[in-house]
């Protein structure tokens, strides 16, 4: 037995020694882990290239990027923050998440790190997305809105020389396109049980003069304006104008359908346009154009000039990271003006100076698509509407997603479905 105890003791000592070695601070570069989406904005290969360029300039920092679909990012952040230190040192945060994450204590206050040049140079709308009560919680990265895109060939064959200016006009055009048999379903949307359906509803709701909340914070999306919008959405499906698969299509699925030439119109983020000119993904290269996002007749008569939805995102440093300085260095590089201009084919810069004077010409010349996307951005972004900024947004959004889907699939009437969602919002606000 003595021999056994000696062996056991020796094993224990070895394990302890190995553990201590593991605890020792590693020499060499610091590794930071960054989570982002593989959907809108830059492609993973482009961000990887930026990361490698950054590492070459900062040999003491190594960057490990992780890409997941947009719908997985929120929950990956939540689970990643359960670890100590966190699984990610920084993460992309959508414009609808800061309130929840600030309340949860996930985001580092970076107010003092933001320089005056950054503050004045980047669009105020981009800062608004990460600023709460005067404190800044992230570095703006992507300014995006939903755009209205159409297939020039199909409209031309149908005899239209311009895209529709109102949703009613779109329905008229779509009927002609369908009657002529150019496509079976002229319009494709992202109306699945995901955030995409709330984004599209936002576009339509504000374009009809509606809103989510009134001045007192009470839900009003179930009033006459909201019900009209949802009724219109359902009718376009019933009339065979909206592709019924919209109810299960997220934004990549919308893109796949539109770029296969199966739809005349699609509402989507900017990435769809850059992909439309990629022959490996698109059967309609060079045939896609932007139109101003239509509004409803009633909205136009009420003086509404345009309507879209803000889909901007930022990068935030996780509050518990031990590498805040290194991470901030990388994020500022990622958002730097030179980098953003270089990769502006996929994502337009957040720096407002790029859209003024001589810089505008430089920006438009930076990539072949910029002469088209820059004017589209300048025309659409001023009409970007915000979804509610509340800490319980995810649950509220899910209630609205359910309501819209129940109405679209005929499970409930638009009024009943929206009333139930509004009641849920009131309940959540009261907690």
């Amino acid at each position, binding site marked *: 037995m003595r021999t056994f105890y000696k062996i056991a003791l020796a094993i224990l000592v070895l394990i302890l020694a190995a553990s201590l070695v593991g605890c020792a601070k590693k020499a060499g570069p610091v590794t930071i882990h960054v989570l982002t989406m593989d959907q809108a904005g830059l492609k993973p290969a482009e961000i990887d290239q930026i990361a490698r360029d950054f590492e070459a300039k900062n040999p003491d920092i190594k960057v490990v990027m992780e890409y997941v679909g947009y719908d997985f990012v929120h929950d990956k952040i939540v689970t990643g923050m359960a670890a100590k230190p966190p699984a990610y040192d920084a993460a992309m945060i959508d414009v609808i998440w800061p309130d929840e994450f600030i309340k949860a*204590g996930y985001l580092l206050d970076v107010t003092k790190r933001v320089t005056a040049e950054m503050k004045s140079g980047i669009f105020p709308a981009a800062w608004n997305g990460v600023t709460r009560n005067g404190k800044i919680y992230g570095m703006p990265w992507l300014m995006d809105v939903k755009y209205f895109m159409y297939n020039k060939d199909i409209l031309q064959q149908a005899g239209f020389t311009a895209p529709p200016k109102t949703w009613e006009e779109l329905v008229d055009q779509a009927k002609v396109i369908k009657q002529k048999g150019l496509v079976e379903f002229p319009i494709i949307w992202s109306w699945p049980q995901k955030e995409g359906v709330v984004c599209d509803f936002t576009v339509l709701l504000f374009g009809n003069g509606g809103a989510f909340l009134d001045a007192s914070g009470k839900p009003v999306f179930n009033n006459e304006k909201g019900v009209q919008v949802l009724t219109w959405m359902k009718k376009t499906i019933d009339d065979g104008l909206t592709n019924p*698969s919209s109810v299960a299509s997220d934004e990549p699925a919308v893109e796949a*359908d539109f770029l296969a030439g199966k739809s005349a119109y699609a509402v989507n983020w900017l990435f769809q346009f850059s992909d439309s000119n990629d022959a490996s993904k698109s059967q309609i290269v060079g045939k896609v154009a932007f139109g101003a996002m239509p509004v409803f007749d009633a909205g136009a008569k009420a003086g509404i000039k345009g309507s879209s939805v803000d889909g901007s995102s930022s990068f935030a440093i996780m509050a518990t990271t031990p590498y805040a300085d290194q991470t901030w260095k990388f994020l500022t590089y990622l958002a730097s003006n030179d980098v953003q201009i270089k990769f502006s084919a996929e994502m337009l810069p957040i720096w407002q100076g790029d859209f003024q004077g001589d810089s505008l010409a430089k920006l438009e010349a930076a990539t072949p698509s910029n002469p088209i996307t820059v004017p589209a951005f300048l025309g659409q972004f001023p009409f970007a509407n915000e979804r509610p900024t509340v800490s319980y947004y*995810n649950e509220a959004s899910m209630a609205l997603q359910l309501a819209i*889907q*129940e109405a679209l*699939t005929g499970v409930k009437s638009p009024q009943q479905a929206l009333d139930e969602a509004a009641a849920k919002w009131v309940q959540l606000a009261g907690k």
Partner: protein
Amino acid sequence: MAKILKSHPKRRLSLRQQDARTAWLLLIPSLVVILGVTLWPIISTFILSFLNAPTGINQARTFIGLDNYTTMLKDQTFWATIGRTLYFTVVSVGLELILGLVIAQLVNSHPWGWKFLRLSLIVPWAVPTIVNGAMWRWIYSADFGALNGLLMQLGLIKHYIPWLSLPNMAMPLVILADVWHTMPFVALILQAALANLPEELEEAAAVDGANAWQRFWQIRVPLLRPAILVALIARTVDAFRVFDIVYIITSGGPAFKTITITYLTYLNTFSYGKQGTGAALSFLISFFTLIMAFIYIRVLYRPEENQ
């Protein structure tokens, strides 16, 4: 004193006792690890289920007793979700059992190429669930899916059908994907059991005039009962906790028609930041699962038949 000590020498352990002691000493590290990664999370989650525990760092957690449980048990969404999950479980496990038994019988009858058939059974089961979900999502795709393509070519439909947009079709289609994926597990268990059944009983029954159907129901099925019990319990527990395939194919849509109880737990825990509610739901899932396992054992377990 020295005399007393000498008269009571230290008791020597027998070789068997020494072996047992050594075995326990060697097992202790792994036992500590296993208890650490299984028992502690269960205890921790159980405690969490009695707290109002919003997600976040340094968030105040307050004891609310059974509120998380009572809130859920009074919630219509919870019961609708339980009903939907039971529907998924009963239909998918039922289909898996029937198809699994048929295929096991087929393989066991050793037709031409039966070894290849048995080997190919493993393929669907070996495909990761996430990959399986993505594959079926594409098969069901309205515009590009193989299902619509096949039905169009056969002339059975004139227009593409948006399968996953149809509230009454989404769940059956998820079930179909799940059956394709997990039925081989049931088939392999039953085939292994069939291969070990004594042939004499069936031969004797045949001599006594029993036809094939009677031999199947009166001899084979009773003898297969232990294997069926194992397959049923394993598959029911698994099916009741289904999450990943739903997440990938439908994300719970359309209109919540494919949200299952584990999906609801996931939403509460990670998307809505309600860890206490999520923990309570986890225990409710365990409770329902145990009830089902108990029912199976009471109905199917007959130890006297195995002796």
